[in-house]
């Protein structure tokens, strides 16, 4: 027998069965249902009460991330000399599957060095609205100049503001994203 849900005969052929939900009200059973089950539920609630609230009150509070969390990119400088580590080699751009990195290199002028090598990135832009946070740029970088940071707050009102420039990527994030602690 085949059922065609749209045909009238299908509906006619269904036998209507009345379903009874729960026992009938009243009696001892009724009293138990009114308090017993509720108390049982409250037991779990009470037990957790001493643990304090679990809610993370974002944005006042932030979810900690794992150390290898791949968030917003960071560009780095040498701590001792203050020179940028990036030499503008464009390998990150080559590795990027989303094609969201643009590098325009330029030559260092003696006396006004930007990076340690001969060349530096005059323009370094990442279009974060296209980035898929795969971390290939970090892997491709021969100088550890770019790493994936822990920042994940990148929402903005304008897409254009999501194109991060070199200065933005070099700057420390305003607020540090907390890290998960050991074993967490």
């Amino acid at each position, binding site marked *: 027998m085949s059922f065609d849900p749209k045909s009238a005969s299908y509906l006619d052929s269904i036998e209507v069965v009345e379903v009874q939900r729960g026992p009938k009200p009243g009696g001892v059973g009724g009293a138990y249902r009114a308090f017993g089950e509720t108390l049982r539920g409250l037991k779990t609630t009470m037990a957790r009460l001493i643990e304090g609230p679990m809610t993370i009150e974002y944005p006042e509070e932030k979810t900690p991330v794992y150390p290898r969390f791949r968030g917003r990119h960071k560009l780095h400088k040498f701590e001792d000399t203050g020179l940028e580590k990036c*030499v503008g080699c*464009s*390998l990150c751009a*080559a590795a990027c599957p989303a094609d969201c990195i643009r*590098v325009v290199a330029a030559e260092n002028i003696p006396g006004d060095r930007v990076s340690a*090598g*001969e*060349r530096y990135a005059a323009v370094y832009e990442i279009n974060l609205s296209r980035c898929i946070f795969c971390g290939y740029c970090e892997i491709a970088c021969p100088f550890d100049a770019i790493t994936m940071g822990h920042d994940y707050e990148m929402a903005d009102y304008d897409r254009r503001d999501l194109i991060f420039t070199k200065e933005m990527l070099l700057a420390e994030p305003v607020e540090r994203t907390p890290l998960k602690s050991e074993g967490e």
Partner: protein
Amino acid sequence: MSPAGREVTITIDGREVPAVEGEMLHDAARKGDVEIPYFCYEPKLGDPVGACRMCLVEIEGIPKLQTSCSTPVREGMVVHTRTEQVKEAQNSVVEFLLVNHPLDCPVCDKGGECPLQDISYGWGPGKSRVIDEKRHFEKPIELSPLVAIDRERCILCYRCVRFSQEVSEDAQLQLIERGDRTYVGTFDDRPYVAPFQGNITDICPVGALTNYTYRFRARPWDIEHAGSVCTICPSQCNVSFTVRDEKVKRVISRDNHEVDDGWLCDRGRYGFEMFDAPERVREPQLKGGAVSWEQALEAVAEGLRRAGGKVAAIAGDASNEEGFLLQRILRDALGSPHIDSRPSRGPKADVLRRLAEPNVSAKVRDIDEADAILVLGTDPLHSSPILDLRVRKAIRRNGAKLVVATERPTALDGGAEAIARYAPGQAAHFVGELASAIGGSDNVATPVAETLRDAGKVVVIWGERIAREDGAAEALLDVAAATNMSTTDGAGLLEIPDTTNARGLREAGCLPDAGPGLSDTTAGKSTEEIREALISGELTTLVLFGADPLRDFPDTPAWEEALTAADFVLTFSMHDNATTAKSDVVLPLETHAEKDGTVTHPDGRLQRVRPSASRPENVVPNILVLSELATKLGLDTGIDSQPTAFQALTNAVTLYNGIEDEQIGGRGLRWQDREGATSARTGTEQPGPGGPPEGGSPDTQRDAPISMVQPDPTPRGVASADPPSGGPSTAANGDLLLGTYRDLWAGPVTELNPPLKFLTPQQRVEISRTDAERLDLKSGDKVRVNGIEAEAHVKERVPAGVVFMAEGVSDGNANALLNGGPVQVKIEKLDEATA
């Protein structure tokens, strides 16, 4: 090891590969699709040197591994390129190369397009055992203002040095020191200055030699390569534009053996920055102010209509399609026959038709195989640089005999068997004498003629400017007949015209006495006559398409007058210049990186210029501008794109009938080589060039006093000519005859181009030692020559009685002194104080 060897079969890696006996194993393998890694091998640079040891292969019967680049193929050779032994050798060579290589690939411009990277990945051991300090050099340093050298990266493959010594033959690059301390340099660390130096950056297999113009500009994955043709000079070398963000960042050669042999001159290579010069015309201008296209075209249509047929046009830097459209507008919309594409004047249409006969024209490749080469009235280095290398190659590799017959000493004199110097204005006479000397008479041209007589394949490379003299082109045809060119395969005439696409424009119909395909038409005025007619008021309106008469045409004062006298001047120009300043309407031209169209090489090869970079916002394709203008003038050309323009061109030009865009492709197509090529002279029956010479040098010319001048003796110079005392050159009043030449570097390509600016030539007066002594001059003295102040330059090889000055320089342009005939100049020495 002749290339025309016997066909043999060799076995490479167990596979049978056809080869030609005597060719290098490496070439045979490449043709047979077997890849053998290499660094130093490059047949274009001459004999193999076997220095890199990367191409070692195992050949059965020879115990030691052999370099495949230097092993000639023999029948039945059994070769292995992938055995353990070979792999070990390849691994070890890569490892050795990297012992001293800095591996600074991230900062190196070659990174990503580097043969050393490729080969290290493909054939290297994959891990390094070197922990020792590498060698250090100061880096990067200037090898020249255009090329940076990083000696740490150099793997000493000898390529650049071989280029300098065996191709451009300037011998400036040398290897200095020895062992692993060897480095490439020049004597005394002087800058490497040569017109072809950019090629060493193309052939360098590592990032040791890089262009300053491309330094850190882009990575291989940031760019696109766009194949096109360089139209800065008539060589029309095939190039590939490196384009990033729709802007040209670099120009590299695109090897076409038929045109450029894979080399490129520095003008073509570094000239691209003039595309973005501040002087670039970026929008239509009406009386000096920017206007919209509608306003501009309306003004142009109005101006042209007002002329009522008293209009002339001169085409200069234009594609075939543009030239074709321009002459249609002139002839069909405006009803004026006055159109030309030459700087002053030239042969009549019937002579041009005979010169265009396929059996007397040579192609570029014929130079390679020629038995004798005559360079006549031109210095290829200045006028078509790539042919200079070609001639040198023919002498060096093929033992071709070179003879040079020019006014001014040329760069090729050193390799010539015989040299003749004729006085400025005596070209027609000399060529006439040459034709009869080849035939057996004894005259001033005999030393040159002796080399050409019975030489077999003779290629004559001649400069268009000799044909400004009456009868010169006819005499040239006599030379062709005397050397049996029409019946000798591989012999012929090859013109070096004054403008890039001169041949294409002539064939497209930009001639006063010939229409498209050199067809008969109502005769109009030539450039010179147009100028005079403008001055006299016979013509009132002038259209200049890519022509700059105030810089490039002889007799600048007359042109100033003509442009001032004209009611309306429309100029299509790429850059602002003196001519645009005197124009009513200026419309922007596309550069050769932006243009879409065809050009015709002086040997008849149609080549396609392809749009590679973006145009400035307000620059519109010139074909569309012209067809729009035609429509406004009431002529429906049916042209609205490059394909329709090309179609219209090939339909109208009989020589090009039936040529399809695909046939041109990336390598071009010589219309003469096409099956069923139509001769230019179809319908106009005339005796062939081998027949009786008609219209030779006019008798008046023949009777003119001979003013051959004596070249200073050169080691091999066997030219004998009348002693200098006989000619008019040493006029009684001490005046000297003026000869002019177009310098390689004169023009916007250096002036508007930051990287080449340092090469911008200054006017200088080249004078012979004899005259300099008489006038008490030495090199560097300031002199005034008929009003032009310049520096004197005493040159050993300049004939007495003549001075040479450059055309087209911005300051003291010698064109200002020319007036169509021989010019006597007076040289005054200026004191330091007055100077």
